[in-house]
């Protein structure tokens, strides 16, 4: 499978502060990869590196086989970029901004843009700066669809959007990406949105990658274990196979990729007598919390 994006051994520091070290990941053609992580784990740093607005301390990031920091105009034309907050030229109206961008892209498709714009309740000469956040998001999305890029980078696409616009954005994008075999790299703070949209996820914690896998695989193998036990379970905290061990409403909760028999066997070997062991499958948000913890 063709790799559209490939980051190899990315390391980045801001001054003395290490953001991450030897980060490796790739996105294959036709896939939608979601980058998930708490604030400060390096999501924006990664977006900036792969769009060429930040030079990593070491390592390289290749987009269509070219270093992201020196992309040729031909490659840039194949990449659609949504800036965090749906930033656009808000001093223009929807016709002016379409006229501006259309002159740069030979394969410009104005129909999807104006189809999307026809759904907005705006006056034709209304400047983008006077539109609501949701309307601005549709303008930014419409421009990307008109550009018809092979690869899209969407930085926190759900920021500032109400549930209706978030759903609209996702549905439109998902339908388009699947129909046209587009590749997407995206981040969002709202993980329910990501679950609807993405095929694969990359979950980052401070200085490291916790998981990179298809969402279905993650949700099929990562489980929550709830149990009661009179014995202290602190020993599990140092066991890397268990995540986010905590007590909740008098019960002990932990998360793991292990199966129920494996967990039981480990508990027994450590002298933990667990009662009422319950195994629950998880949503992507629960899995994210399970992997990264609440704090």
């Amino acid at each position, binding site marked *: 499978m063709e790799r559209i994006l490939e980051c190899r051994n990315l390391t980045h520091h801001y001054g003395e502060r290490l953001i991450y070290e030897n980060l490796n990941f790739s996105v294959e053609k036709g896939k939608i990869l979601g980058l998930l992580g708490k604030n400060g784990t390096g999501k924006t740093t990664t977006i900036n590196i792969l769009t060429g607005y930040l030079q990593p301390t070491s390592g390289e990031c290749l987009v269509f086989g070219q270093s992201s920091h020196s992309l040729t*105009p031909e490659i840039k034309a194949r990449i659609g970029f949504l*800036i965090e907050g749906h930033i656009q030229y808000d*001093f223009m109206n929807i016709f002016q901004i379409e006229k501006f961008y259309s002159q740069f892209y030979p394969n410009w498709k104005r129909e999807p843009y104006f189809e999307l714009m026809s759904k907005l309740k705006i006056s034709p000469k209304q400047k983008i700066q006077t539109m609501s956040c949701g309307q601005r998001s549709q303008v930014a999305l419409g421009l990307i669809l008109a550009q018809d890029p092979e690869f899209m980078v969407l930085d926190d696409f759900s920021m500032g959007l109400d549930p209706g616009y978030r759903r609209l954005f996702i549905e439109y994008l998902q339908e388009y990406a699947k129909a046209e075999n587009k590749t997407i790299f995206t981040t969002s703070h709202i993980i329910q949105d990501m679950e609807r949209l993405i095929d694969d996820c990359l979950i980052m914690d401070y200085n490291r990658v916790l998981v990179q896998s298809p969402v279905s695989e993650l949700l099929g193998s990562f489980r929550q274990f709830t149990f009661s036990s009179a014995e202290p379970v602190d020993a599990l905290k140092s066991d890397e196979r268990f995540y986010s061990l905590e007590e909740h409403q008098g019960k002990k909760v932990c998360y793991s990729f292990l199966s129920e028999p494996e967990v039981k066997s480990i508990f027994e070997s450590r002298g933990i007598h667990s009662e009422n062991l319950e195994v629950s499958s998880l949503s992507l948000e629960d899995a994210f919390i399970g992997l990264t913890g609440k704090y």
Partner: protein
Amino acid sequence: MIQALFYKEWVKLKWTVLFGFAFGLCSVLYIWSELAFVFRESGAVAIWDAVLHQGFMYYVSFRYFPLLMGLALALFQMIPEVQHKRIKLVMHLPAHHLRVLFSHTLIGTMLLLGVFFVVSALLLGISAIYFPYEIVVSVLQTIIPWLLAGWSIYLIVSFAVVEPKWNRRIAYVLIGLASVYLNYLYTRTGMYLHSLPLLLAVTLAYLPAMLFTGSRFKKGVQG
């Protein structure tokens, strides 16, 4: 590319340019009305004598117009680009990012010099109604350093706004102000006649500076 960028910049800057032009026009009309009044009241001989022998600058109110116009154009052109890092949008266009940035500088320069040309031509035209050719030429020689100061401040503020670090921004503006001050050092008519090539060279030296600060932004230098 340049046509599309010019379109974007015109949408953004048309009111700044038109307001600047109107301001320049008003200052020239004011000079004209004052000149007409003084000619009526004191007579041509007294005025000619004052201009020729006492260095009287009847157009002194034009002095800071280019500077204000250059400053306003730079701020109204570049602040929207750096707000929310919007400049990433033009850098992502399918063209070399330095070419795109330099085009912004050229478009701004074109608009600025366009306004300067029309307003200065009006000032010189009015001067030609009342004074002989030699005085009109000396007026031109006197206002050229002011016009160059306006162009310089436009270039300096533009590249300073794009610079990611605040301490450097301030340093660039201070150095720029010191250099622009040279254009206002002498107030007598035609004093800069032999320095004009030097002042022009200093202004032109600021022209590519945007490429430097733009590259620093592209590298991800943190503010």
